[in-house]
């Protein structure tokens, strides 16, 4: 038997659904669909789209390469201070992105902690596409680490231990036993990290600036366009919304 929904819960639930969906519907309503092909074909818009795609893919790949090993270390090794480290990894997740940008400047800027070293090497990331990738990885990495670490912690160790006693080297065990077992979580973490990277704004504009073609990703372009060409801003927003919906759908089918 289906229980009746109490009014005290139904009303706020309805309000929250409206709160979440109305802005998205309004965006779709205002999107100049007729002009969309023309707007999306514009060189400045294409430039922002390609830059965003490249940076988000690179940041996601970086997160994957660096994040899975970190998740493994956090979940599987008796590293002292592991719990503290796990907590600290979570901080960028909840940190206001603009604060992340300031922190990145203080670490990797010309006057930052590693500034002299980076200037010497001719590899200062500020104002470069690398800076965008770094900022995006900074905010995206925790999503991957936490997702994979959670899966590893929940995974029974029997199979790994059996493989170990049968004489497989630890790295081989990791690659052939552990990783396939947490594959779906790695995929989910990758999607989450990619979505976060694609939407990154605050850390990027603070750390990498905003220059079309080099550091002005789609979110930055939306912000800039909103001031003199709102229709183009709505069109680009609709594209990001579509990508978000696709990512969520992908995530759901993966999880199932």
């Amino acid at each position: 038997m289906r229980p009746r929904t109490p009014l005290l819960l139904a009303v706020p639930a309805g309000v929250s659904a409206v709160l979440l969906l109305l802005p998205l519907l309004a965006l779709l309503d205002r999107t100049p669909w007729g002009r969309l092909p023309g707007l999306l074909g514009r060189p400045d818009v294409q430039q922002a789209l390609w830059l965003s795609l490249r940076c988000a893919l690179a940041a996601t790949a970086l997160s994957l390469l660096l994040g899975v090993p970190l998740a493994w270390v956090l979940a599987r090794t008796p590293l002292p201070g592991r719990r503290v480290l796990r907590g600290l990894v979570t901080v960028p997740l909840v940190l206001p992105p603009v604060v992340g940008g300031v922190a990145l400047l203080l670490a990797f800027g010309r006057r930052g902690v590693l500034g002299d070293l980076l200037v010497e090497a001719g590899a200062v990331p500020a104002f470069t596409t690398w800076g965008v990738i770094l900022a995006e990885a900074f905010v995206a990495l925790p999503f991957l680490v936490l997702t994979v670490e959670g899966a590893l912690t929940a995974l029974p160790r029997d199979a790994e231990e059996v493989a170990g006693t049968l004489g497989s080297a630890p790295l081989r065990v990791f690659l052939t036993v552990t990783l396939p077992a947490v594959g779906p979580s790695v995929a989910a973490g990758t999607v989450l990290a990619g979505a976060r990277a694609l939407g990154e704004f605050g850390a990027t504009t603070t750390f990498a600036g905003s220059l079309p073609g080099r550091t002005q990703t789609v979110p930055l372009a939306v912000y800039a366009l909103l001031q003199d060409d709102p229709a183009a801003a709505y069109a680009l927003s609709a594209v990001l919304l579509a990508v978000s919906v696709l990512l969520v759908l992908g995530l759901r089918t993966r999880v199932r």
Partner: protein
Amino acid sequence: MTHLLASARRRGPGVHLSRRKRGWGGVAAVLLLVTGCGSSGPPQRTVTVFAAASLTKAFQAEGKAFQDSHPDLRVTFSFAGSQSLVAQVQQGAPASVLATADLATIAAVKSRLSGPPVVFAHNQLAIATAKGDPLHLTTLASLAKPGLKVVLAGPTVPVGKAAANALKAAGITVHPVSLEDAVTGVVTKVRLGEADAGIVYATDLTGSDVGGVALSGTSTSLAIAALSGIPAPADAEAFIAFVRSDPGHTILTSYGFQ
């Protein structure tokens, strides 16, 4: 709320109950904080001023002096790139006064103003550099040096537009590393040392920890107007009159405006 508490008391075990109670206590504390904030001091009317980022320090001083002479009024500011403020006004932002860094930008919302905008101050472009200008960047031509990290404001920002015009008039091509959305963004990037130079306003060098030099022959005009259809037009006009008065102008000149 009492109903929920009662049901928790009836059904939940002891530990659960006390935790539940603490939760509601937290909610009550937050409510007290929120309502407490709203009920301080005598009722005051507020003038909301949207002002160009270059006016940040000067207008904060204007606001203080204005409140001293008008105890029943409070001034709140929103500082941003003029083009951004104009876009916000077009979207219906609740501003009562709009002050922009040039006339062209405020003209875009002419229909929303209560009257024609007036020029209340002048400014000049300037090159901002690190303190002491270690790279000797004193002319527009020096900004074209290859390898130099120059930051400008975007083409829709008044200072970005003025800088682009000045560079074009001088026949100089600069390849900026970033296009900021307000002059304050340019100043910040130079101050942090991430950029070697930027084109800003002369007033940004006044009392600042960046170095630089004003560029002669690059006068800009700041414009101000009240918006139409606001609740207390007289309050908005009072603020504008104060800014244009002698004491108001003295404050502006003390921040480097002309």
